């Protein structure tokens, strides 16, 4: 997976695609790509491609939390994106990715669910955020969060008037207000490659690299939002020492700032 | 964590003593130990043991059998497939037993083995990547004690119990054999076959063996004499 270039005494080691270990792949982002969705975004991180579409619906809030709306996230890993996935009900891996993405969104509190409520106990918005992976080439959680957050940031909520007596709902699509988004959680995946007694940290691994480092779901994922950690996930794989842990957190922080810039510039250019 | 002989060890501990001994002489590392790079690591929970000059192993608790070369095991024939019998020995897959690996067997003179028969056999090939293979003869073509076990009663137990009762220092068989006559075959795969003159004696024997699992040598002697006196009708 690596090629060594000997230049005098220094040895530089590169990924198979010529990146350095802690370089990340190029990000290509396009917002509002799907006209039929209420908000959408497509992202390509290297070859990994994820599309996110948000569908708006109205529903009655839960009785136990009358002033809270709903944000439903779902990640689909279809056989389309990789030969590793079979048709049929969502695989365990897809369920775990879904869970991680929704955990990050809830933990970061970037969306205040109270903002989604229109009339307490009567009416609130339901945001169905569906992320579909088109090409699975590693670090899929990173890509999912980028599309999800760009979609949420561009989402416009139409104004709704609700008649308490007649319970009549009027939706005015001409007046739209953006959804308040508080912060921007950005996840970064790392693969830990065990080489005898020391380990090498690979930023933004491809599917091949993930496979070399413990297979599906063994990535370390660190998520930053506004200078706070809103999710650190590591399930098995190679073991990680404290120095490596600190290194990854710093790298993730660096990357989160960069990606945040990318998202903001992209949205500005579009509007 | 560093461990030394006689210690209670957990997987992940390492023993420097073995490494040091290995520099001077050849050492044999047995079950529960594994060499990684320049250290010897423990892989099973138990007690680290040593036999002079240089044999090391970990005594651990286990119920599931993993085939290992040269061990005598007891299996049940589950299938006849052409030239071989498939024998269930309690491992992850069945073991193969060729019909030619019986004493005096030739292509014409096939041994009488039926599905459901119990065989006492030796592991000839046991590798993690291959199907285990059994034989019922030794290297001289003699059957010795191996072969089909007819009648009797077969029961399962933990692997430790078999090792324990086969240990020459264990008083169990020593005390039982003086009380009443019986036949016994113990497979290292945690299966014991017993045969006594009556049902009563067979059950008593089985209970004595199973009861010995967590007892000390002294307690085993007491159990044996108790069972013997119950059997003899002194105590009802």
């Amino acid at each position: 997976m690596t090629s060594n270039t000997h230049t005098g005494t220094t040895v530089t080691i590169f990924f198979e695609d010529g990146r350095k270990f802690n370089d990340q792949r190029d990000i290509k982002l396009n917002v509002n790509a799907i006209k039929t969705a209420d908000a959408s975004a497509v992202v390509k991180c290297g070859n990994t491609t994820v599309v996110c579409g948000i569908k708006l619906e109205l529903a009655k809030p839960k009785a136990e939390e009358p002033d809270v709306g709903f944000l439903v996230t779902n990640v689909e890993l279809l056989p389309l994106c990789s030969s590793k996935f079979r048709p049929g009900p969502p695989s365990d891996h897809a369920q775990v990715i879904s869970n991680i993405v929704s955990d990050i969104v809830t933990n970061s509190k970037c969306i205040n669910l109270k903002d989604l409520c229109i009339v307490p106990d009567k009416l609130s918005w339901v945001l169905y955020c569906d992320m579909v992976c088109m090409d699975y080439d590693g670090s899929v959680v990173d890509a999912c969060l980028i599309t999800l957050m760009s979609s949420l940031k561009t989402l416009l909520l139409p104004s709704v008037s609700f008649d308490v007596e007649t319970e009549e709902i009027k939706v005015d699509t001409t007046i739209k207000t953006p959804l308040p988004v508080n912060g921007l959680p950005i996840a970064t995946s790392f693969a830990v490659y065990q080489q005898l007694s020391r380990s090498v940290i690979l930023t933004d691994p491809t599917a091949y690299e993930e496979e070399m480092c413990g297979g599906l779901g063994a990535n370390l994922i660190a998520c930053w939002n506004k200078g706070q950690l809103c999710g650190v996930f590591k399930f098995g794989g190679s073991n990680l020492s404290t120095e490596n842990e600190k290194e990854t957190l710093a790298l993730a922080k660096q990357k989160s700032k960069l990606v945040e810039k990318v998202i903001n510039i992209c949205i500005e250019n579009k509007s | 964590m560093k461990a030394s002989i006689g210690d209670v060890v957990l997987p992940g501990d390492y023993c420097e003593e073995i490494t040091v001994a290995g520099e001077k002489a050849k050492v044999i590392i047995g079950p529960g130990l594994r060499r990684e790079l320049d250290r010897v690591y423990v892989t099973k929970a138990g007690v680290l043991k040593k036999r002079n000059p240089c044999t090391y192993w970990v005594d651990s608790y286990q119920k599931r059998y993993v085939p290992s070369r040269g061990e005598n095991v007891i299996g049940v024939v589950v299938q006849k497939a052409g030239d071989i019998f498939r024998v269930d020995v309690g491992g992850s897959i069945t073991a193969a037993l060729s019909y030619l690996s019986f004493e005096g067997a030739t292509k014409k003179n096939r041994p009488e083995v039926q599905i459901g028969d119990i065989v006492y056999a030796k592991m000839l090939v046991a590798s993690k990547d291959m199907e285990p293979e059994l034989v019922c003869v030794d290297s001289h073509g003699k059957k010795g004690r191996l072969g089909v076990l007819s009648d009797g009663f077969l029961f399962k137990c933990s692997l430790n119990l078999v090792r324990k009762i086969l240990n020459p220092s264990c008083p169990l068989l020593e005390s039982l054999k003086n009380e009443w006559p019986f036949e016994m075959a113990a497979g290292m795969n945690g299966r014991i076959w017993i045969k006594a003159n009556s049902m009563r004696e067979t059950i008593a024997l089985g209970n004595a063996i199973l009861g010995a699992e967590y007892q000390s040598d002294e307690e085993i002697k007491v159990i044996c004499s108790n069972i013997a006196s119950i059997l003899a009708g002194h105590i009802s």
Partner: protein
Amino acid sequence: MGQKDDIYQNFQLRPMKCELNFLSRSDGSAILSQGETVVTVSVNGPLDIKTTSQSIEKATLEILFSSKGGKPSVADRFKENVIRQTCETAILGCLYPRTGITITIQELEDYGGLLSCAINCACLALLNSGISLHHVVAAVSCIVDETGNIVLEPEYQQVQSAATKLYFVFDSRDKNLVTGFTEGAVGEDMYLEALEKCRAASDLVFNFYRDVVTKYSNVI
């Protein structure tokens, strides 16, 4: 330095009680209580499994988590994944290729820290089963309360009110991080402090394992 030692010595985990070989028919089993939380685990294997799920390189690990309610949910799949990935690093699967190892976890009581209790119990059941392990693992959970204090192995009420929960699993060889995940937002310093505290506390769990094995070793 003295002060730092104090911090590490003053903590304690909830009382742990364990019985090995709790179930008579499985290859390895354990029941573990940490405080009020109780979990039982059974391990079977290495067993024959169907050809499609066999791996020629290592043993296939199958985890079944049943919650007290019995109804399977996405959260259970998540727990299964955490336990599978954690156990996979611990088990020397390369010694048992083309076989399957089944770990069944039954929740009995959940008063906080269910997942760490389940991981510790699974580890004890694996020790009992005699399957070769690379190392043992110890799971420690903690929360950050409103005042910014780190509470190790919190009680039920504390878990309910906590904004941030952190779970860590360490290996016994180098005390490196095997598994870790967080719920809720946390600052970097706080995260690292919690990590170090849990790492130090994992020693208590490893010592507990050793005590349990010692207790059972005299009957082997």
